[in-house]
């Protein structure tokens, strides 16, 4: 009943897509094009939270605003790199949709899956729909054997310790009911990908209805960024933190 009252007069849902960016001059244009391509009959807005990119990302966003309209593309920049969690909070403040999508700007998350997120949520009335790379229909491209091994090992460990209720804990391609995102994000304190884990674990603990859709993930960055010992230590520390505090 409450859902019906919250909707706009024409009964359609509006989706706010928050995309944090840092030096994504080219990718931001590509991703905006693909979002418009795949969400033709959907009421949405794109909120770009740019952390003062030196490569001119904001200029490109302004060009996109000129093309698509400032009501469809919102630029809500910040002065410098301030972290992912706060980027979402910042974007949330300006979101006028009933639902919020979070996704990465580097095209590892493909907008073509957005309709399946929306459909799943409408079918199940879930509070959160999260993309999973680890089920049939999903997948990853661009990882070598070692990377897959660490990912799988990390996942098994997290499943055993935390019982998180989702198959992909560190994924950051998700659709939230706006009120649910606001509630969960206020209780999260971690940084980086542990933050993504904390979000979904806290949501599970709070009893929110979470559904998953398969997504494919094309990692174009992995070759350049290494998954070293310090990342593994951070991950283990994050697991213990979540084990003890959720």
């Amino acid at each position: 009943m409450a859902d019906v009252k919250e909707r706009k007069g024409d009964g359609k849902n509006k989706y706010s897509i928050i995309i944090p960016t840092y030096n994504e001059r080219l990718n931001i244009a590509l991703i905006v094009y693909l979002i418009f391509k795949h969400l033709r009959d959907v009421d949405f807005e794109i909120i770009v939270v740019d952390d003062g990119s030196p490569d001119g990302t904001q200029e490109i966003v302004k060009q996109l605003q000129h093309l698509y309209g400032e009501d469809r593309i919102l630029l809500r920049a910040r002065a410098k790199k301030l972290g992912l969690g706060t980027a979402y909070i910042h974007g949330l403040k300006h979101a006028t949709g009933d639902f919020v999508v979070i996704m990465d700007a580097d095209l590892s998350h493909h907008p073509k899956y957005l309709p399946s997120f929306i459909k799943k949520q409408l079918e199940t009335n879930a509070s959160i729909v999260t993309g999973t790379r680890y089920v049939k229909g999903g997948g990853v491209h661009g990882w070598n054997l070692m990377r897959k091994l660490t990912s799988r090992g990390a996942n098994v460990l997290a499943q055993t310790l935390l019982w998180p209720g989702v198959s992909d804990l560190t994924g950051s391609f998700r659709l939230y009911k706006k009120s649910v995102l606001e509630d969960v994000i206020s209780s999260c304190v971690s940084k980086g990908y542990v933050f993504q884990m904390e979000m979904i674990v806290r949501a599970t603990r709070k009893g929110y209805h979470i559904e998953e859709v398969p997504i494919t993930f094309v990692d174009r960055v992995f070759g350049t960024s290494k998954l070293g010992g310090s990342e593994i230590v951070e991950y283990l520390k994050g697991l213990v933190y979540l084990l003890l505090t959720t």
Partner: protein
Amino acid sequence: MKHIVKILSMVVGISTFWIGLLQAAIVPRSHTWLLPIYFVVSLGCYGLLMVGTGLMQFPTCPQEAVLLQQDIAEAKDFFKHKGVDVGSD
């Protein structure tokens, strides 16, 4: 209830059962003493099995990289005459 409390209660429950087995001596004591070790080892083996099978069945999608390149070309083409600068970075 916090998750850690749930896990600790399970551990306490299993330990109580184990101590009970030791005292009742239904199963020969020498076997019972080794039960925790069997348990930990089986848990470890199970974990390794999950990692191994997961790794073998790891879903990959090489065709997605190709599709992505096509999408990128399509997008660049669209923007060329629309005042959005998509030259290479």
